[in-house]
């Protein structure tokens, strides 16, 4: 029986790609309700694969994934009603304008027409897309595309938001506004799963942290507990920051080697 306090429960999840590459190798993690869960790892650690499995775009070979207490794949349509996704490759219809796309997304989530137009107007304004509201999304910059994906992910006020590198390619002002919005949503009970390479941001912004390496979650805890938990885990060494801990956990001394031409 899954813990009711966890919105996402992954247990011993294995995902193997062609040629025997194991993207997830018994990955186990749980995302508590109402948390802002920072999911961090090196490139190729398994973050995006995990998120693709949550989005149904990839299937795990072994293990269990439970969302809102229901196994993944069951009642998909109803469960997706409660989730907003921003994937690494933003997904939208390039030929639509921002206003058209948000209206389309609102309708897919059965939002009333008036409410959809009110929310889409506010979101376009909030993300600073007013100037290009009538331009096709295909003509937007990478950052603007990310913003429209984010807008689409929150328009229906989901209970869970899954974001893969949402702040990548977004300007500092918008990033700050997004973080404030996500914090506000979390305080209202929305659970947020976010992957990021910017550890400093994760440490300051997330309430919980999971570190994934080579398809396994090495550490999962509350951000406030990270230093004490890490102290026990890694040779009783006290770490000054998440970055120090992260590097120690996942680097495997690969940086100990020096480049001959620089020494």
């Amino acid at each position, binding site marked *: 029986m899954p813990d009711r306090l966890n919105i996402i429960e992954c247990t011993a999840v294995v995902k193997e790609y062609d040629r025997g590459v194991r993207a997830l190798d018994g990955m186990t993690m749980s995302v508590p309700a109402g948390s802002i869960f920072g999911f961090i790892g090196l490139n190729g650690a398994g973050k995006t694969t995990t998120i693709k499995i949550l*989005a*149904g*775009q*990839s*299937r795990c070979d072994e293990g269990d994934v439970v969302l809102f207490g229901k196994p993944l794949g069951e009642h*998909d*349509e*109803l469960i*997706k*009603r409660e*989730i907003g*996704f921003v*994937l690494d*490759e933003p*997904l*939208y*219809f*390039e*030929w*639509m304008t921002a206003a058209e796309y948000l*209206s*389309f*997304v609102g*309708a*897919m*989530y*059965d939002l009333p027409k008036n409410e959809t137009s009110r929310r889409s107007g506010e979101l376009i304004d909030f993300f600073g897309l007013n100037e290009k509201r009538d331009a*096709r999304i295909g003509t937007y910059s990478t950052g603007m595309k990310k913003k429209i994906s984010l807008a689409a992910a929150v328009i*229906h006020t989901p209970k869970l938001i899954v974001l893969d590198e949402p702040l990548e390619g977004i300007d500092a002002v918008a990033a700050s506004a997004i973080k404030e919005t996500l914090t506000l949503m979390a305080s209202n009970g929305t659970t947020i799963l976010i992957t990021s390479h910017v550890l400093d941001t994760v440490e300051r912004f997330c309430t919980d942290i999971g570190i994934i390496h080579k398809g396994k979650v090495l550490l999962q805890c509350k951000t406030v507990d990270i230093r004490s938990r890490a102290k026990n885990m890694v040779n009783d060494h006290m770490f000054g920051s998440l970055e120090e801990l992260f590097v120690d956990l996942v680097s495997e001394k690969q940086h100990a080697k020096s480049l001959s031409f620089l020494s």
Partner: protein
Amino acid sequence: MNRQITILVRAELKEIFAQRRVYHFLPLLVIGSFLMAWIFSVGSPFAPIIVLVVTGLEPQFNNIIFRTPNELQALGILSCSWRNVIVAKNVASLIHFGLFLILVSMSLLYFSPEVITGAHAEEAALYIVTVAFPLLHTGNTQSLRRPRRYSGLRLEDLVQAVWMCVNLALLSVPFYVFSNLPLPWISCTAYGVLTGILWYKISVRSSSVYLAEHFSDLCLTD
């Protein structure tokens, strides 16, 4: 029709005019102007027009889940029912078919040496009634079994267009049987209604179930 289907149909109807695919009709119109110069022993002057429209709209029938490369994944993260998606896409394909049939007819009938009569139009209408839903069904099957992430003017697309024409020829057999029976408009209409019911009860249902079950595999389409 529920709101989700209405919005999806509206988006589908608009999509084709935002894509380069619509320009595929230009070379087809040139070919069509030559084809219209013949008097066809089988079918009416509308026969080449129907073939051209079906060829031009091939991705609308045979590649419904990848009209644009990320479309499937984009729909997959939203809370839409696959059944609604299939119905909306099929309904939009029929509307496109009717619209382009009118537009292409207006452009090409001028080149026909035959005098176009009401009987020709009636025959064409009855023919369309008999092939429309079978075309949607074969298109749904093809879209899910042989999806293409990109549709354009590649060899694969040309092969699919030829396949579509062969398929159309096979699906025309019932019409030629019915047209040689007394009161063909009754038999053709009854056949059209029957295929419509089968399309909704069997094709839409099985396609949406297949799509739900194989979504992650279909996302890997090249």
